[in-house]
């Protein structure tokens, strides 16, 4: 067993939960690998990690790993995560969401969690489609693309998840692709270490639904597309907006300091206690 495999093996739930539900060639496994490597590098204990997810292909991720795992309702993962974090701040809360999960049904929770700067790490798998339900268009399906519910063409504009997170106030936002697994490792590691609301958007392929319906090829070909269209933040800074139209800007988009909710709430507790008896 290779060293990398050994690390992953250490964190998996080996009793009963395999094989997993994902299609052969799916990018979620790469994201899970990156997450485990990041957690291992940071050195978190299994007991102190709470892995929360919503609904969809990505929602199934926590069940395979040996942490405190919480598979919630569609779009609501961040609300549960907020409760866990506030009730027990010593826990490290990491939330896994899909694109529909995070910015369609859960869009409101997403922007408010970012605005509050709750100390939670969000990892969003963006594969531009509702995969599990059969390939319907999501808020990140690009204009003009086909899906089970846009067979004539998608006439809606797509959300840019990372840019949305930046605007909503997230203190750390990074974007990577499942092709660039090592970058993903480091982005997730940085996000976990960052106090406050951190976001890592993971661009992934759904060859089974999105790829098939739009004739984008198999998993390998779709990953090659990621490789060919990924541009680092540094390089993108020197490029004209027209040149960035069909590109995926990868790397750290934002890393800033803002008061963290939990620390601010500690101050509120002190102020509240000072008013007792008044």
């Amino acid at each position: 067993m290779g060293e990398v495999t050994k690390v992953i093996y250490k964190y998996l739930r080996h009793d009963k939960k395999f094989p997993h539900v994902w299609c052969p060639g799916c990018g979620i496994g790469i994201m899970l690998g990156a997450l485990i490597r990041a957690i291992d590098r940071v050195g978190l204990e299994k007991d102190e990690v709470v892995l929360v997810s919503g609904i969809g292909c990505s929602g199934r991720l926590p069940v395979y790993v040996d942490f405190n795992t919480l598979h919630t309702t569609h779009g609501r993962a961040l609300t549960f995560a907020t409760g866990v974090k506030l009730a027990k701040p010593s826990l490290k809360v990491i939330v896994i969401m899909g694109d529909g999960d995070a910015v369609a049904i859960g869009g409101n929770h997403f922007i408010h969690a970012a605005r509050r700067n709750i100390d939670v790490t969000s990892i969003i798998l963006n594969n531009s489609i509702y995969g599990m339900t059969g390939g319907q268009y999501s808020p990140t399906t690009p204009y003009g693309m086909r899906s089970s519910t846009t067979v004539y063409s998608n006439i809606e504009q797509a959300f840019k998840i990372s840019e949305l997170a930046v605007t909503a106030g997230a203190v750390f936002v990074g974007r990577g692709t499942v092709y660039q697994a090592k970058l993903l490792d480091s982005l997730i590691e940085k996000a976990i270490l960052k106090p406050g609301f951190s976001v890592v958007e993971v661009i992934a392929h759904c060859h089974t639904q999105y790829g098939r319906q739009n004739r984008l090829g198999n998993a390998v070909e779709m990953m090659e597309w990621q490789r060919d269209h990924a541009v680092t933040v540094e390089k993108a800074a020197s490029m004209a907006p027209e040149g960035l139209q069909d590109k995926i800007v990868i790397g750290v988009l934002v890393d800033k300091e803002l008061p963290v909710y939990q620390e601010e709430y500690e101050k509120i507790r002190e102020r509240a206690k000072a008013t007792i008896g008044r």
Partner: protein
Amino acid sequence: MLLQGNEAVVEGALVAGCRFFAGYPITPASEISEILSIKLPRLDGSFIQMEDEIASLGAVIGASLAGVKSMTATSGPGFSLMQENLGFAIIAEVPCVIVNVMRGGPSTGLPTFPSQSDVMQARWGTHGDHPAIALSASTVRECYEMTVKAFNLSEKFRTPVVLLMDEVVAHMREKMVLSDEEEIEVFNRVKPTVPPEWYIPYEDTPGGVPAMANFGEGYRYHVTGLTHDVRGFPTSRPDEIGPFIARLHRKISQHFSEIQMAEFFQTEDAEITIVAYGCVARSARRAMIEAREKGIKVGLLKLVTIWPFARAAVERVLQKSRILLVPEMNMGQISREVKRVNPGVAKVFTLNKVDGTIITPDEILNRITEVS
């Protein structure tokens, strides 16, 4: 001291050990939020105002899983939004308390007017077959006691408990003597005593309620809204699904006598028994007294537990009285239940009012004269 119903809920919650509240502003429940936002941080608890009621109940469930007794408070429109995560708390067996100060509906309805129209929603609002516990309160004292009871039942049976109040009871002020905390029975969830490797988070037990480990205490397990096996892992095996859903129901039905609370007033010799709850029970009691003064033998069965429906209590008055009258501030939600359990020996009459005003003792008295 002179307390408002909503204030009494806060006092009850704090005595019961509630240390987390998440909510969204809504009339006529907002006082609960406002007071807890002041009191919880003093006790090292947490208050957070969420972006909506869906988020509120999500946060409450998350906090409870982390080991902190948690609640939210809302009214009809918010209660509608909470149905989704209410179902989650039921299937994942997470204790929590939801106060619903009922107001007139449907939709935005009558924000500042009293109503009892969410009774059936508290039973069947969330999808799927599920048990439900809902309590009611008709006095400020009961707002306090039933909040404590709601927490105790939720911790004991690992299920969400709804406290159905109405705008009258929530905003009414009454004298109330707060007892010493020692006198109040507070129940805390049963934690596992076995080592983590032996822990079976959704194990069937004689009482039907498995021990609950809190996140971060060494018992790493999976919590999901999917139908799951005893380990908490999603299952599609009929031999695991059936027993699991059966246990969810059994853990409540096996303890009906402990959950179902009702009060009997002069029902022993009553020819007519009024069955009422919430603020209507107050008018009913007055009507009963006045009817007796006129020589009509009237009794009152006050339902405190709304769900599971106190069938045994209703059957007891059905054996004594030839007429049952069910006054309600809705189109007849509990009267349906009374009719359902009536084998046909008594006549069941209704008195329904949905115009945003309370049912007065006179109205009940008139109805008694009509039906007797």
